[in-house]
């Protein structure tokens, strides 16, 4: 009985607080790029008196029991996700901000790709292998933007190398007509036949809307580990935006800023 009463009191107090307090805004994550070679540094900023930023590196939602941010976080492990949330006595906690950091893979000797739209040329031919990107703004020059039907990318890794998977980092911003592709097909070069043979593929579906603007990396696993010196990636851009989009039927855009081979 007593426990019930306490519970009701607690519920009442939390709902009253919820209606009567402001929420903190999310902290600012600062980093040059989500891509790194051996290690990288993340700075978290939140200059608001009476608040503290708690963060996690294991992908879990930060609570006020997690470490308080005091100094730059050093990251060296591939796919480390930093998540941060601001807490303050007189406020409701902020939404979570986060980013996943991606380590360099097999060195890519050279790359060749379909020419991007002239408005979004990136920073030139090596845009997709420069370890720069993960910026959640379509205006950032780290992105190459396409509104053609198909983007083909050829990657040369020099001598034959065991390859397990290929990673593409993409932007999703439906309001700006930027969608993930409908399909990604990866081929590996087979010396014996002198041609590209299927390595792996991913097909995406767009039944529901995804609000906001964010990065999304897609990993295409090989059906088996192979040894190859070259890869070909065909990306099929969405030709008709889905029925739920305000501009349904129009051709979507594809934004890509990096490719990794592991």
């Amino acid at each position, binding site marked *: *009985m007593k426990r*019930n*009463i306490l519970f*009701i*009191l607690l519920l*009442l*107090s939390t709902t*009253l*607080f919820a209606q*009567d*307090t*402001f*929420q*903190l*805004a*999310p902290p*600012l994550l600062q980093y040059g790029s989500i891509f790194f070679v051996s290690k990288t540094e993340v700075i978290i*900023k*939140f*200059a*608001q*008196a009476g*608040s503290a930023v708690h963060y996690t590196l294991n992908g879990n939602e930060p609570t006020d029991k997690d470490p308080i941010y005091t100094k730059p976080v050093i990251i060296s492990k591939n796919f480390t996700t930093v998540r941060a949330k*601001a807490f303050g*006595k*007189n*406020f409701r906690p902020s939404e979570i901000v986060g980013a996943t950091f991606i380590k360099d893979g097999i060195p890519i000797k050279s790359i060749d790709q379909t020419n991007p739209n002239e408005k979004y040329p990136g920073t030139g031919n090596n845009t997709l292998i420069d370890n720069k990107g993960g910026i959640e*703004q379509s205006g950032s020059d780290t992105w190459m933007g396409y509104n053609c039907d198909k983007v083909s990318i050829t990657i040369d890794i020099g001598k034959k190398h065991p390859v397990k998977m290929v990673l593409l980092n993409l932007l999703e911003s439906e*309001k700006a007509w930027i969608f993930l592709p409908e399909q990604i097909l990866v081929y590996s070069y087979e010396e014996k036949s002198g041609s590209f043979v299927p390595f792996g593929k991913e097909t995406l579906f767009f039944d529901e809307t995804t609000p*906001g*603007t964010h990065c999304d990396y897609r990993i295409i696993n090989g059906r088996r580990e192979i040894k190859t010196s070259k890869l070909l990636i065909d990306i099929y851009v969405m030709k008709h935006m889905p029925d739920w989009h305000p501009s349904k039927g129009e051709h979507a855009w594809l934004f890509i800023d990096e490719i990794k081979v592991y």
Partner: protein
Amino acid sequence: MNRRKFIQQSSLAAAGITVMPSLLHAGNKEDIIFGHNNKRYRLDTKWGALDFSRYPVKDCHEMVQDSKGRIILLTNETKNNVIIYDKKGKLLTTWGNEYPGAHGLTLFNENGQEVLFICDNNRHQVIKTTLEGRVLLTLDYPKETGEYTKAEEYVPTETTIAPNGDIYVADGYGKDFITQYNYKGEYIRHWGGRGAEEKHLKNAHGICYDHRDRNNPILIVTSREQNAFKRYTLEGKFIDTIALPGAWVCRPVIRGDYLYAAVLQSQSSLWKESGFITILDKNNKVVSNLAGSEPVYNGNTPDEMYQTIKAFQYPHDVCIDDEENMYVAQWNSGHVYPYKLTPVV
């Protein structure tokens, strides 16, 4: 649960509420102090609330105060484009049905008669009216500049009026030119526009006549997408840039030695209702951010600024009254009426 137990529980819960006010008080909305240094405020989010069925608003774009102390709000709701309040938030009167793109609102005392200048985005015009809404002058798109071939290219967002009556119009949603007219509405010159040089503008959303240096009045123009204000002479010669990293500043509003501006959103959190208010001192250094990060300087430019408290969504303009209170009008923020902030002394 039987009835007796239920009564017992509810009475205890009620007792709990009466005990709690001191606890509640600590986190109460009205009790939070916003801002930094000597520019700190309490916020009243209910100040301008009206019966939406009778006095609706869409975007609340700009506000000014007249010499009677009344607070005049401009909205693009054509049922009542202009809503006039007293300082306590009481509705005094409304007028205006013909400004579907009502955006910019400037008040000017013309030899004792106060007049308003309304920029209408949809009509591609600037309209000068009396405080009661009688139209005195209409400025169409400035053909004389040679920069425009049709009205649609011109989307004026703001005006400022110099003491001699010269009218400066910022084409903040069009081609970003500043066009200067004399008091009769005759073209004098234009400048700004888009381009790669520092004197150019990107989203010239606001403009104001800055007379804080009495001997050297100048113009301050917003370059919102560049997160900056730019200073020009009254003849349009570029002086310098006041960089405000992270802040999508709207129009500059001068009162006393300070410059106040609504920040529509934070660059670090675009289109996510990340606005705040910024205040600059007479040296154009940020001294306070209301619901924003504490200003930090390492050199002449502040560190990137951003929203820290979700008190505002998309603040679009501030008005400072004769008692230093602040009023905040918001764009695209769920038809919200203006807020009032009172200084903490």
